[in-house]
């Protein structure tokens, strides 16, 4: 009798652990919760989120949500949907998200720093909204990002230097904001021109100084001219 009750409690404990473990493996549940947290914070006059039913096992049948073969969210496409309200930190839980398309709405508030957790993100389109606050430096962790379009918002502060470490970046548009400070020119930012940054009145674009005139081609080597790097910002 004394031997049996510890056996029962141990196996009950093991059963609980097993059940909890299985639940945690179901991506769908926590991702549905994360998206539902977003729905709660958004105002949706056109009912584009009407299909978002949090009682379903995963959000993969919801409109504007795309999942992969393991029922994990890969795309969230809510561009030009007349949404207002704010973004939520829970978006950072969508670990397999590749496309976050929230452009052309009236979303206010800040860009959550938790978006830096979206390691698989390829496209971050928050352009044409009413976002404010800084560009989080955590976005530098998005090492697969190809498209970063935050233009036409009211973002302030400086451009985080961490963004220059994203070597996959192909399209950068930070124009029409209220950014200030210097524009980095190193790393991936060597590929970007003033076209990516214009209409930020406080932003200092790199100044191009033409090379000194050369009347004759010299027969001795002259060191190559490099434009001076802008002074690093103090944090």
């Amino acid at each position, binding site marked *: 009798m004394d031997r049996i009750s510890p056996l029962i409690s141990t196996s009950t404990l093991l059963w609980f652990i097993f059940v909890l473990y299985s639940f945690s493996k179901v991506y769908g549940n926590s991702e549905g919760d994360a998206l539902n947290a977003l729905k709660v914070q958004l105002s949706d006059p056109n009912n584009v989120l009407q299909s978002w039913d949090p009682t379903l096992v995963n959000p993969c049948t919801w409109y504007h949500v795309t999942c992969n073969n393991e029922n994990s969210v890969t795309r969230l496409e809510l*561009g*030009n949907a007349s949404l207002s309200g704010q973004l939520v930190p829970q978006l950072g839980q969508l670990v397999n998200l590749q496309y976050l398309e929230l*452009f*052309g709405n009236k979303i206010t508030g800040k860009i959550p720093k938790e978006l830096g957790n979206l390691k698989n993100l390829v496209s971050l*389109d928050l*352009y044409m909204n009413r976002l404010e606050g800084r560009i989080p430096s955590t976005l530098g962790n998005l090492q697969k990002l190809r498209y970063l*379009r935050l233009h036409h918002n009211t973002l302030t502060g400086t451009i985080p230097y961490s963004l220059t470490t994203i070597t996959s970046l192909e*399209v950068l*548009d930070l124009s029409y904001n209220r950014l200030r400070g210097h524009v980095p*020119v190193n790393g991936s930012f*060597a*590929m*970007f*021109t*003033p*076209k990516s940054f*214009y*209409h930020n*009145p406080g932003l*200092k*674009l790199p100044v*191009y100084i*033409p*090379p000194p005139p*050369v*009347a*004759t*081609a*010299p*027969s001795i*080597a*002259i*060191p*190559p*001219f*490099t*434009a001076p790097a802008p002074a690093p910002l103090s944090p």
Partner: protein
Amino acid sequence: MTTEWNRITVISVCLDILISITCSNAVESDINCLKSVKASLRDPENLLSSWDFNDSTEGFICRFAGIECWHPDESKVLNIYLSEMGLIGGFPIGLKNCTSMTGLDLSNNRLNGPLPTNMTDIVHFLTTLDLSSNNLSGEIPVSISNISFLNVLKLDNNRFTGRIPYELGGLSRIKEFNVSNNLLSGPVPNFGPNIKADSYAGNLDLCGPPLPRCKGEPSKTSTGVK
């Protein structure tokens, strides 16, 4: 100190106004740019047939073959990629109206004739310019040295003659430079250690580091007058 700050403010305001002037009407000018490109090139393989200007929905040119826009909702050209399309004609100066274009790849076509001397007015914001493997001739325009954001400049496999403008060495962002297989001669620009000798292979008589030193009197080559 205050006058310095005032001067900087005035300059940056003027620059801002200048940039906003050039950036306004981006949509209409970009559409005209592509119309002009299509009109100025012969397209025997009809690969530009998707370029239908009767459509007028938002961002319609973004769906044209070879066109990448800044974002899908607005007809603002970011990159033009028309490699291996069998296109024939001169360098399309209508590209001047693609005022936000940063990438241009017309490689492996049958473009001919010289490049315009005012390249910097036509394609000022390019970071990538690839005109390799065409039939282009004449000299490499000095004005390319004012396209200050260039990271990649590929002019290889053409029929460019004369000298490579020394001023190209002032392009501070250059990562890739290739003029191999042309008819170039004279001293090469100084890009530093990143550009190797194979960027210059297959020409007439190029010299200077990373190639062997130039020979002959400096005065003979100093006038630059042809």
